[in-house]
């Protein structure tokens, strides 16, 4: 398991919030003429591109070999600079031993000469000369699918276009490679064909799967591109959350975990050619015809979630339905935005609910220590997927919590989040109701996340003493006692008019 831990040093002084061990994503600066040394060779590369959701999800399996005379521990994965900023949840594992966890990955600044940026994969142990390693690389490409045509009529089918290089971008020589595209439908009016690169048709079609290659690229220079594109029917919304702010508020006194999420959402589907027609929309909704507008969102909540609310800039939105479910099945919040969100339209709203804290918080063996386990991200569960450009998660701990440490859980498969060094962590203090010092707050910021990260979990440990817990009632006690003492002392003043 890979984990990340940060520590806030003691909250002995009231100015606790100043105690921070913040981490900021770090980027390696490279020389302007940088090119990775040719110390590896890709023996075989298989790229699987899944376009069934509204973003591209790629897994690249490659067998690499160290062709240098010395052991090598860093492998460079290149992306064009404009694509690089939209790569989400980049993860590399040893394909043959995924349980060993993800490799440490660092990112680089753009190289001026080539406009290429690299992910540098650091192997746990350098790869010996002539040794081979099978890597499994997975990532999402956000905003990689563009509607073509860009504008359509309200009830028209939508087509998305995906452009990529049939040669997998690589900093090293590749012997053989192929790319499998999994499309959401068999309605594919256009796709690039190649000639002379392999025997037989290229791409090979099998239902909704298109395979480019295998190509023999032993004599192709590293970094060579072979631009191809595919255009396919996709009459679903392209849900993009520009910003998600998610607050988790822990209350020991209330025994409650309050969750609130604020969304700034945009549909990046084809825009409307003409004015929106309410009549056409009503017909289409009645027939449940496919549409590229966001009609309704379904949000699965954890078992025991209560008091849900759905609010936008105007106020409460009444078009939501909450299905509490059972203790085992969990709940579902089905909510319709105030208006259908067509391509290019925006909608911002707020969701919130409460849970009993006992399901998420445990008292550790050490006195005054607590362990909190909460979902890092939840979000609507939609067949077409949801992409988040920027996520800000705030875990608001009780006032006086100190020695805070956190860890993002990793399993044997990708949790959809980038590596720990790409998550910005800060500690601060938040003053709200009945606070004197302010509540210890852990803020985690991450870019380019998709709904693949829905199952990711965050564990936070902290210490909270009895005196920390009693701070609120004692503060009120002190205030009221001061009033009583004031009344008593004022009552004892002799203000009568008499001779002294």
């Amino acid at each position, binding site marked *: 398991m890979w984990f990340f831990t940060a520590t806030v040093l003691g909250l002995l002084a009231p100015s606790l919030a100043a105690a921070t061990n913040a981490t900021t994503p770090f980027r390696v600066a490279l020389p302007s003429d940088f090119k990775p040394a040719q110390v590896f060779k890709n023996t075989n590369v298989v790229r699987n591109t899944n376009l069934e959701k509204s973003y591209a999800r790629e897994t690249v399996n490659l067998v690499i070999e160290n062709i240098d005379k010395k052991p090598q521990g860093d492998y460079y994965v290149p992306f064009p600079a404009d694509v690089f900023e939209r790569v989400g949840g980049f993860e590399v594992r040893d394909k043959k031993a995924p349980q060993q966890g993800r490799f440490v990955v660092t990112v680089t600044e753009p190289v001026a000469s080539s406009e290429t940026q690299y992910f540098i994969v650091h192997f746990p142990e350098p790869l010996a000369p002539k040794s081979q390693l099978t890597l499994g690389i997975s990532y999402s490409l956000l905003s990689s699918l563009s509607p073509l045509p860009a504008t359509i009529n309200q009830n028209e089918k939508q087509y998305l276009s995906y452009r990529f290089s049939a040669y997998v971008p690589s900093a090293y020589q590749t012997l053989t490679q192929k790319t499998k595209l999994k499309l959401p439908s068999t309605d594919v009016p256009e796709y690039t064909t190649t000639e002379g690169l392999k025997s037989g048709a290229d791409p090979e079609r099998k239902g909704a799967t298109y395979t480019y290659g295998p190509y023999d690229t032993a004599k192709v220079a590293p970094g060579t591109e072979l631009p191809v594109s595919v255009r396919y029917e996709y009459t679903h919304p392209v849900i993009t959350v520009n910003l998600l702010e998610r607050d988790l508020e822990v209350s020991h*006194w*209330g*025994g409650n975990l309050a969750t609130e999420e604020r969304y700034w959402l945009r549909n990046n589907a084809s825009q409307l050619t003409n004015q929106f027609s309410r009549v056409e929309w009503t017909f289409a909704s009645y027939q449940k015809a496919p549409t590229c507008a966001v009609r309704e969102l379904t949000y699965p909540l954890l078992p025991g979630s209560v008091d849900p609310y759905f609010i936008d800039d105007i106020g409460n939105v009444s078009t939501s339905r909450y299905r509490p479910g059972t203790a085992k099945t969990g709940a579902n919040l089905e909510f319709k935005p105030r208006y259908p969100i067509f391509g290019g339209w925006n909608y911002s709203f707020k969701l919130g609910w409460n849970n009993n804290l006992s399901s998420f918080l445990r008292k550790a*063996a050490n006195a005054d220590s607590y362990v909190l386990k909460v979902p890092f991200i939840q979000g609507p569960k939609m067949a077409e997927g949801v992409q988040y450009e920027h996520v800000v998660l705030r875990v608001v701990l009780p006032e006086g919590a100190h020695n805070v440490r956190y*860890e993002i859980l990793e399993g044997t498969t990708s949790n959809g989040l980038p590596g720990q060094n790409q998550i910005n962590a800060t500690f601060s203090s938040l003053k709200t109701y009945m606070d004197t010092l302010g509540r210890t707050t852990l803020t985690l910021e991450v870019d380019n996340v998709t709904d693949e990260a829905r199952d990711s979990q965050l564990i*936070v440990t902290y210490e909270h003493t009895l005196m920390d817990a009693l701070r*609120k009632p004692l503060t*009120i006690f002190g205030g*009221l006692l001061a009033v*009583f003492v004031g009344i008593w002392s004022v009552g004892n003043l002799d203000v009568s008019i008499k001779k002294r």
Partner: protein
Amino acid sequence: MSLIEAWDAASATPFHPFVSKDSQFAVGFNLLMIAIILTGLFGLNRSFLSLASLGVPASVLFGFGAVFTICAVGVYV
């Protein structure tokens, strides 16, 4: 010890608040009521003895009562 191990090790001790959610309003309301009554009694006789015997308990009860009541109405502090 990694944090997931700490979580697993603490499986037998889930957190329980002093007062459960269902009882917060009753407890908070009663504490506040007693505090208000004691405050009224202190108002009748503002001696030092009253301050110690009525004012101090009223302050304590008001402190805890206010915290439970604000939780009961949905502002979880």
